[in-house]
């Protein structure tokens, strides 16, 4: 009984808060039509980063079928992330991206920078409504802020139904603007990381010589065209084409690449540099099929871009309902990508420096898979509780560049294991 009272109070409180945001007053009728989804998710990589993300999303359907979605996301990230340098048979010392201090990595270990601590707050709003006969329009915005990063975006979408709503065509556009302001400034592309005595009076001057400014920005335009088709009573299919063009700063200011001698020994660490233009095309197909025993959700995505990255993503979920309203949903996802043309695991010191280079395994050749399980149950009054547990495995691979000298003895492509755990409550 106590629980029930608390639950109602929470909903009333959130409703009041949402109404305050909207400048309207909470009354009995609005109270009933807000639907809230809350979730907390924990992502943890073995020996690397872990992130906790909390979401609260409210949806209100108005009396003329207008729908308002508001969402607040907060996430906190801590832990260690690969800095891009290769492992070595000897210990290595690196300067922190901020210039404040250094860290040392053991012999044979993939160098990880453990200075990642960030908290992000994100606000999302979306308004969707019918317009004329057969049209649905939607506009939305998004703003997120973390210590060294800001992102803002606006989007618009229009959909038209044909053929008794069996066919829907949609077109959308989104514009995003991101600003990065890393502590310690923007490193000069391909300049060598200063790794001297941090207490040396000249250290700060030397460090500053590798900096070219305090912030950088990028803008993204996305176009999305989709067809949704009802096939029969059990089956629906969606096909999307999306075009995305990004211009501006896409370099990761925290990433470096090892410059090695003929024996594979690191002589310097250069700050990476990526092109400032990227154009992507993605084709996405999804189907949902209602079998007698459950619902299959299968999708495939192909992406190709002018960095020469091609990727394929396969995703399968199968929701099995039980007679008591509970359900179980196994999930399997498979992803494979080819390397960006400027990806290299290391640079040979005596070769000419390329214009663009990155040793970030996330734009190298990479295979990943995810297996997971979701379990959900109704809690009465239309409320739902669900748990999700997934295992995510990343296998970075060689793009064909041969390891030389001592690099043959170390692991250049370390695999990563991660666990995703999530609890969702809807009321």
């Amino acid at each position: 009984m106590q629980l029930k009272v608390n639950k109602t109070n929470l909903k009333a409180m959130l409703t009041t808060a949402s109404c305050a945001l909207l400048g309207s007053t909470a009354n009995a009728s609005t109270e009933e039509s807000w639907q809230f989804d809350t979730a907390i998710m924990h992502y943890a990589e073995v020996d690397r980063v872990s992130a906790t993300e909390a979401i609260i999303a409210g949806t209100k359907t108005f009396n003329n079928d207008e729908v308002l979605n508001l969402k607040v996301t907060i996430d906190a990230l801590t832990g260690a992330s690969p800095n891009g340098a290769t492992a070595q048979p000897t210990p290595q010392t690196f300067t922190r991206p901020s210039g404040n201090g250094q860290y040392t990595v053991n012999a044979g270990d993939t160098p990880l920078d453990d200075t990642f601590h960030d908290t992000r707050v994100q606000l999302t709003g979306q308004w969707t409504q019918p317009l004329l006969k057969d049209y649905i329009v939607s506009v939305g915005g998004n703003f997120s802020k973390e210590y060294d990063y800001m992102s803002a975006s606006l989007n618009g979408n229009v959909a038209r139904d044909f053929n008794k709503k069996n066919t829907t065509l949609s077109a959308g556009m989104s514009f995003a603007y991101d600003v990065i302001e890393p502590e310690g400034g923007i490193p000069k592309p391909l300049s060598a990381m200063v790794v001297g005595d941090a207490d040396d009076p000249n250290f700060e001057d030397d460090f500053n010589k590798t900096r070219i400014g305090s912030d950088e920005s990028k803008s993204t335009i996305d176009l999305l065209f989709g067809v949704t088709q009802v096939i029969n009573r059990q089956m629906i299919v969606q096909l999307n084409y999306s075009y995305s063009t990004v211009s501006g700063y896409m370099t990761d200011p925290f990433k470096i690449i090892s410059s090695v001698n003929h024996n594979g020994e690191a002589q310097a660490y250069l700050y990476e540099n990526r092109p400032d233009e990227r154009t992507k095309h993605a084709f996405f197909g999804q189907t949902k099929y209602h079998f007698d025993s459950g619902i299959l959700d299968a999708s495939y995505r192909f992406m190709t871009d002018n960095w020469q990255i091609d990727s394929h993503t396969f995703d399968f979920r199968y929701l099995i309902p039980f007679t008591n309203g509970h359900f179980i949903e196994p999930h399997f996802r498979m992803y494979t990508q080819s390397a960006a043309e400027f990806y290299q695991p290391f640079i040979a010191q005596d070769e000419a420096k390329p214009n663009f280079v990155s040793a970030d395994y996330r734009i190298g050749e990479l295979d990943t898979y995810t297996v997971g399980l979701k379990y959900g149950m109704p809690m009465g009054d239309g409320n739902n509780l669900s748990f999700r547990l997934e295992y995510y495995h990343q296998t970075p691979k060689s793009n064909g560049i041969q390891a030389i000298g001592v690099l043959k003895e170390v692991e250049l492509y370390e695999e990563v294991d991660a666990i995703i755990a999530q609890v969702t409550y809807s009321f």
Partner: protein
Amino acid sequence: MKVVNIYKRLVTLSLVCSAVGLSGCTSLGVEPWERDLLAKKEMALTSAPIDASLDDHIYFSKEATSGGRSFGGGGCGCN
């Protein structure tokens, strides 16, 4: 030049596909009163939007591809 060519081919391909799709569509589909299964929440294309947004964030941070289902957009400086 090569990229432009691929782009042109892809656009042509997608236009042809959608034209074929549309003309075939009138014979597909259901009557409005036959949507009992399709009307289920679980049959929505994005039936778990919260899961989808959390997943998008994870894979956006770890892989070189984002979007497709919906907008890829900007994002975070996440590692």
